[in-house]
């Protein structure tokens, strides 16, 4: 137990700081920064999971997140002008939305499961854009105006509670993804990532494993989509447009595309840059106002891809190891003495 704590103290600290956020953060920060970052981090974490353990860069995560959101909107909203307005209970709507997301993800995953690498990236980007036009054009489900007036379940009526829902789901997903990676399924997935031909000759069904990984990641993206529409109350096709799809990829890259923690770190940096860029002194004089936020983010991504492919998590890890080396040296002597005494 203590060994477990010693190895994971940092994770517990972060989880504690996040859960205690309502005690010390402003309402604006809670609603517009923290909740949004947690939800975007969830979507990005599903992308990171697929890349880290299955070697697939999926740009369809934003679409699946949108599918879940639109389905909640169609199932729950009533009295609006668009969508199906089924007027169901919020929880039923959630299960319905997640079910549809899983079905859609299975179809997409099965079609994409035989392609790999850069082909997979392009194919999933194509899914994303087709999905955007689908929800834009098909007025049965939404149309470009989107669906509004979606209320969350009674338990989640206040914004603090939505924040807690997002935080708890994030923690569970993080722990869950790491646990899945150690199951036989997760290990098979990693084997397929490294050598699909060998895994196939060992008797593993490679396309099926890839599809299942894709469905699992899709489910997490769907959860994020449900949380998002509960948080925002509305959804329109613009929120799954190609720029949003690229945003999620950018978040994963900023945090480090092969680190699960990085997904949320990247999301925090992204959302904070979006909100606070204009408050940095003298930034206007460089022509980098809030309106030019995307240029700044683009340059940041370029710098990260070129200089530190492991993203900010990689930078932090290297800094941490450097500090530990510096600090550990002078501490070694007394430690040794203690060890001798106790023996």
């Amino acid at each position, binding site marked *: 137990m203590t060994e477990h704590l010693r190895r994971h103290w940092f994770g517990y600290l972060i989880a504690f700081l996040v859960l205690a956020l309502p005690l010390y953060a402003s309402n604006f920060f809670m609603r517009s920064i923290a909740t949004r970052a947690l939800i975007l981090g969830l979507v990005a974490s599903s992308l990171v999971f697929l890349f880290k353990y299955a070697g697939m*860069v999926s740009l369809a995560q934003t679409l699946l997140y949108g599918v879940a959101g639109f389905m909640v909107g169609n199932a729950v909203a009533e009295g609006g002008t668009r969508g199906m307005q089924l007027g169901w209970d919020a929880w039923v709507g959630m299960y319905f939305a997640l079910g549809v997301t899983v079905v859609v993800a299975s179809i997409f995953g099965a079609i994409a499961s035989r392609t790999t690498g850069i082909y997979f990236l392009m194919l999933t980007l194509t899914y994303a854009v087709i999905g955007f036009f689908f929800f834009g054009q098909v007025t049965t489900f939404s149309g470009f105006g989107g669906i509004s007036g979606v209320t969350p379940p009674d338990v989640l009526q206040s914004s603090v509670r939505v924040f807690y829902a997002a935080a708890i789901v994030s923690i569970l997903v993080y722990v869950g993804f790491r646990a899945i990676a150690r199951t036989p399924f997760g290990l098979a997935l990693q084997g397929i990532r490294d050598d699909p031909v060998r895994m196939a000759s060992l008797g593993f069904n490679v396309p099926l494993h890839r599809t299942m990984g894709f469905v699992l990641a899709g489910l997490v993206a769907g959860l994020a989509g449900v949380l998002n529409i509960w948080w925002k109350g509305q959804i329109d096709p613009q929120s799954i447009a*190609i720029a949003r799809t690229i945003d999620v990829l950018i978040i994963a890259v900023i945090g480090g595309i092969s680190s699960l923690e990085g997904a949320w770190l990247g999301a925090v940096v992204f959302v904070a840059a979006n909100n606070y860029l204009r408050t940095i002194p003298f930034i206007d004089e460089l022509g980098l106002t809030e309106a030019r936020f995307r240029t700044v983010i683009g340059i940041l991504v370029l710098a990260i891809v070129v200089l530190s492919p492991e993203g900010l998590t990689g930078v932090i890890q290297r800094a941490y190891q450097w500090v530990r080396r510096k600090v550990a040296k002078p501490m070694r002597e007394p430690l040794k003495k203690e060890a001798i005494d106790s023996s």
Partner: protein
Amino acid sequence: MLLALVLAWVLFLAEGTAAEPAFSDPGEFLVTVLDGITLAGLLFVVASGFTLIFGLMRTVNMAHGSLFLVAAYIAIDMQQSMVGKTRSIVSEDVALADWVLPMLAGATVAAVLGLVAYHLLLRWNQGQELQQALITVAVSVIVADQLLARFGGLAETMIWPGSVTHFFEILGSRYATTRLFMLGVALLVALGLWIWLTKTRMGIVIRAGVDDQEMVRALGVRISVVFAVTFFVGAFLAGVGGAMGASFAGAAPGTDGAWLLNSLVVVIIGGLGSLKGAAAGSLLFGMVTAMSPAYLPIEYNFYSIIFTFVLLAVVLAVRPYGLFGRPE
């Protein structure tokens, strides 16, 4: 089987659609087919640049749509200053040179931009597909934002030259010659590419490089020069497509993403890196795009976008690397 069903539907059964069955309304059918073929021409111009770059260098240029949009905006600006009006230009004002010169200028700027990006960002990480894709994604984000700052968010169009803007009748339906002009430009581009790739020394080197890069290098060819030229031509083609696309459907923020998607669909269907594949993919995608809204029952018209997806799914189910593609 599937094809026979679709044919039967289009020829005889499509009652209650925008176009009516081809058997009873052959003019409308011919117009739809022409729409498909002319759109395929434009698709081919843009996608051939994309596939040329990928075929030789394995670089997926996610900024291809941005190059398209840069060229479109520059061509529009130049046309406006050549005609001397910034708004309500009619095609009678536009001489052929007022269209061709801006088109070439826009394409050249796109090509130079592509070459600069290649030299600064992509030259030293050959073969790292994901890193290169991410770099071009970042470039496309920056370019899109700068274009928004410079040209604003309103849609602009380029005007076709007056000498090609007519209508003529086929089987009782009117048809615009500008679309045929667009197809003509595309055929010229295709012919030029074909001559370049099969009849010139550089083209032969490029085709050899697609097959076996190491061997070409070992034979003493300076492949970095060949790479630079290929990237220049690929970006130039995106630019030519940009000017044509701006005349055909206009240019606005977001057009870059739409045309990146179009290129992707074409090359995924046709097979990455193959020009034959780009031609086949353009034709299939163009036909599906033109046919599906015309031959769906009117009340389900808006579902036509699904057929793009169906086309992708069917092709990939049969050939995971596209019609003319090869596995790595």
